[in-house]
C-alpha cells in the first residue's frame, strides 16, 4: 500500500502497537532538552530511582532564560536569581546524567531548534521530541518532530519512549510561482490564516509542492516551525538533495553518508498515498503578511485593510492591539523591532534583514534588537560583517538565545509598545505585559525599523 512520509517514519518507531485500550509506544531517536521544561522531569527521575536510558540520544542547551547581554566583567545579567538558578540546574542535571550539553563554553550553544540541525543531530526519518512546542521545526528534514510536556520529558529520559496515538495526516500543497518579495514566513502566515489556529489540531502536516521543493533548509525550517500555530503538533517536508547537502559533514552526520541518503530518499510520500485531508493553495495568492491581532491566525496581507472584527473576541483583540478595523495596517507606528527566534534567526534571515539595513538608519526613538539563533550563526554573521551593518544602522547585535520571542530573560517591550517581531506568537503579553506584537518576516521587520511604521520592504525608498 502506498504510504505517506509520516506513515513511513511512524511505522519505523512503533515499539508496541496501538490498540483501543492503549496508545502506541513510540521510540524517540533524539531528545532535545533545555532549562525551562526539564528540571521537574529530573526531579521525577530521582524520586523514582530511575536513570537516563539513553544519554547518547539526548542533547541539551541553554537558551530560554539566558541573557543576551554580557556584563563588562564577563558575567551574565540574569533577569532574576531564579533564572540563573534554572540554568545552573540544567547544567548540574546534564552533568550528573552524562548528557552532552552546549552550555556557555560551547561553540554550538543556541536556540534548541537552531542548534539541533546545525549539529546534524536532526536527520530525516527520525523521531525528535523536546519540551517545547516549536520542535515542529525539525520536520523540515523529514523527521517526525513535536513538542511534549515535562511529564513526557521524564518518560523519554527514563524509557526513550512516549505513549501516543497516531495523528491524522494533512497535506498542504502550495504550487505555482511566489510573488516577488514573498518569503517563507509569509507562506506559513498565509497557511495559518487560511486553515485557522485550530485547523491543524489532531493532524500531522506535510508541506508539498514546488514552493517547498525550491525552498532552502532555512526557509523550510521557518515553515515547519509554525505548524504548531495552526494547532498541528508536527509539520514535515520530504527530504531531498537540499536536505542532504545541508547535513553533509556536520558533527552527527552518519559515517556512510551515501547509504544514509539513499535510505532517506526512500521516505518521500509514495504516489497515490492517501492523506486524511488535503489543502491546495496557489502560490500566486500569497502576499507579504503581517498579523494584526492576538493569535497567529489573525494575519493579513500588509497592503490590505485591517479586517472588521467578526465577533467579540476579535473586537477585544483589535482593542488590545490598538488597531482599527477598516484602516490600513501599513503606516501604524512601531516602537520596537525584534529580529530573532527559532522561526527567523538563521543566516538567510539575517542576510535578508541586513540587505535592508545596509546604508539606512533605524527610525529615531525606535529600539531594534537582532538576536542570532546560535553561536554558529553569530560567528558566520560576523564573518560576513552583518553585525557591522546592523550596528551602523542603529540596531543592537546581541548574544544568541530566545530573547524577546518569549521575554523570559528580561528582553521585553513596555506595556502598550508595538513590536514588529520575526518570532512566532503574538499572544497578548507574550513579549511583556501589555506589549503588542505584530508578526512579520525579517524583511518586513527591518523595513519597519527603518520607516518607524509598519512597512513592506518593497515600499522602502
Amino acid at each position, binding site marked *: 500500500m502506498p504510504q505517506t512520509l509520516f506513515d513511513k517514519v511512524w511505522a519505523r518507531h512503533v515499539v508496541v502497537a496501538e490498540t483501543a485500550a492503549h496508545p502506541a509506544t513510540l521510540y524517540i531517536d533524539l531528545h532535545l532538552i533545555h532549562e*525551562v521544561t526539564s528540571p*521537574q522531569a529530573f526531579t521525577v527521575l530521582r524520586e523514582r530511582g530511575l536513570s537516563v536510558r539513553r544519554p547518547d540520544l539526548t542533547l541539551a542547551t541553554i537558551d530560554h532564560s539566558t541573557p543576551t547581554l554580557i556584563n563588562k566583567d564577563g558575567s551574565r545579567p540574569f533577569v532574576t536569581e531564579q533564572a540563573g538558578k534554572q540554568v545552573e540546574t540544567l547544567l548540574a542535571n546534564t552533568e550528573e546524567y552524562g548528557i552532552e550539553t552546549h552550555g556557555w563554553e560551547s561553540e554550538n550553544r543556541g536556540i534548541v531548534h537552531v542548534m539541533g540541525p546545525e549539529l546534524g543531530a536532526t536527520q530525516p526519518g527520525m523521531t525528535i521530541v523536546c519540551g517545547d512546542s516549536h520542535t515542529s521545526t525539525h520536520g523540515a528534514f523529514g523527521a517526525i518532530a513535536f513538542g511534549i510536556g515535562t511529564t513526557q520529558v*521524564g518518560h523519554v529520559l527514563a524509557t526513550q519512549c512516549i505513549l501516543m496515538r497516531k495523528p491524522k495526516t494533512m497535506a498542504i500543497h502550495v504550487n505555482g510561482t511566489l510573488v516577488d518579495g514573498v518569503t517563507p514566513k509569509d507562506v506559513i502566515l498565509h497557511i495559518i490564516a487560511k486553515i485557522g489556529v485550530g485547523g491543524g489540531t489532531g493532524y500531522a502536516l506535510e508541506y508539498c509542492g514546488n514552493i517547498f521543493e525550491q525552498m532552502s533548509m532555512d526557509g523550510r525550517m521557518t515553515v515547519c516551525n509554525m505548524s504548531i500555530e495552526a494547532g498541528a503538533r508536527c509539520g514535515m517536508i520530504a527530504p531531498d538533495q537540499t536536505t542532504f547537502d545541508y547535513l553533509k559533514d556536520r558533527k552527527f552526520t552518519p559515517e556512510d553518508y551515501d547509504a544514509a541518503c539513499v535510505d532517506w530518499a526512500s521516505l518521500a510520500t509514495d504516489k497515490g498515498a492517501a492523506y486524511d485531508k488535503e489543502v491546495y493553495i496557489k502560490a500566486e495568492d500569497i502576499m507579504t503578511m503581517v498579523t494584526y491581532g492576538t493569535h497567529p491566525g489573525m494575519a493579513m496581507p500588509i497592503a490590505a485593510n485591517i479586517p472588521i472584527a467578526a465577533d467579540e473576541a476579535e473586537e477585544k483583540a483589535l482593542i488590545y492591539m490598538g488597531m482599527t478595523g477598516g484602516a490600513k495596517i501599513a503606516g501604524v507606528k512601531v516602537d520596537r523591532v525584534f529580529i530573532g527566534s527559532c522561526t527567523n534567526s538563521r543566516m538567510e534571515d539575517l542576510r535578508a534583514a541586513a540587505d535592508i539595513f545596509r546604508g539606512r538608519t533605524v527610525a529615531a526613538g525606535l529600539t531594534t534588537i537582532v538576536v542570532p539563533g546560535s553561536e554558529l550563526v553569530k560567528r558566520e554573521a560576523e564573518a560576513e560583517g552583518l553585525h557591522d551593518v546592523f550596528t551602523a544602522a542603529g540596531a543592537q547585535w546581541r548574544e544568541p538565545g530566545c530573547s524577546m520571542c518569549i521575554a523570559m530573560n528580561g528582553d521585553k517591550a513596555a506595556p502598550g509598545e508595538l513590536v514588529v517581531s520575526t518570532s512566532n506568537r503574538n499572544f497578548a503579553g507574550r513579549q511583556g505585559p501589555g506589549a503588542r506584537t505584530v508578526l512579520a518576516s525579517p524583511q518586513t521587520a527591518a523595513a519597519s525599523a527603518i520607516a518607524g511604521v509598519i512597512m513592506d520592504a518593497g515600499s522602502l525608498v
Partner: protein
Amino acid sequence: MTFAPLKTVTSKTLVLPAANIDTDQIIPARFLTVTSRDGLGKHAFNDWRYHEDGRETDHILNSDAAKACEILVGGHNFGCGSSREHAPWSLTDYGIRVVISSEIADIFLSNSMKNGLLPIIIEKNAHQWLLDHPGEEITVDLKTCEVRLPKNGGTFGFNIDAFSRHCLMEGVDEMGYLTAQNDAIATYEKKQKARREL
C-alpha cells in the same frame, strides 16, 4: 507525578468565555523560571488577575466563588500555544479538576491528563449552554462519560481516550506503564541497531 483518582466531580462552573485562551494567558512565561511544579496557582491567569503593581484586579478569577469552582468552562480552542506543563500545574493548584471546551489544543490536552486534570471536548450546543449559564452546578462523571446538567436539565456524553480515562480514574501515571515495557524497548533497540549496521 501522582494525583488523586478522579471519578466524578460536582461543582459550580467557572466560565471564561473567550476563544483561543492560550497558555501565555494561563501562565505568562516570566513565571516559568521555577524548577519545581508547586505553588503555581497564584500565577494562574496572572495578567488577568493582577495589576502591574501586584494589586488584585476585579476579575472574576479573584472571587471566592471562582476559587471554589473545580470545573472550568473555556471558550473554543482552549489551551493553544506552548507545551508548558506549567499551564495545567497552575490550574490544578488553583483548584480546577475539569476543563470543558468545544475544542482543546493537543499538547495542553495531553499534559492535563498526565496531571489529574480532566479535559473534556463537547459538542457546540452543549458548550454554548454552559457558556450561557455560568455558575450552575454540574456533575462530570468519568465512569459513564457524561456531563449532567442541573435540575434534570439533561445529560450529554463525551468521548475520552480509553487509556487516559483508566489512568485518571485509577490515579496511575504513565511512567509505570512505560517502564514495564522495558523488554519490548530493549528488543526494539537491538533490531534498530542491526538495521543501522546492515
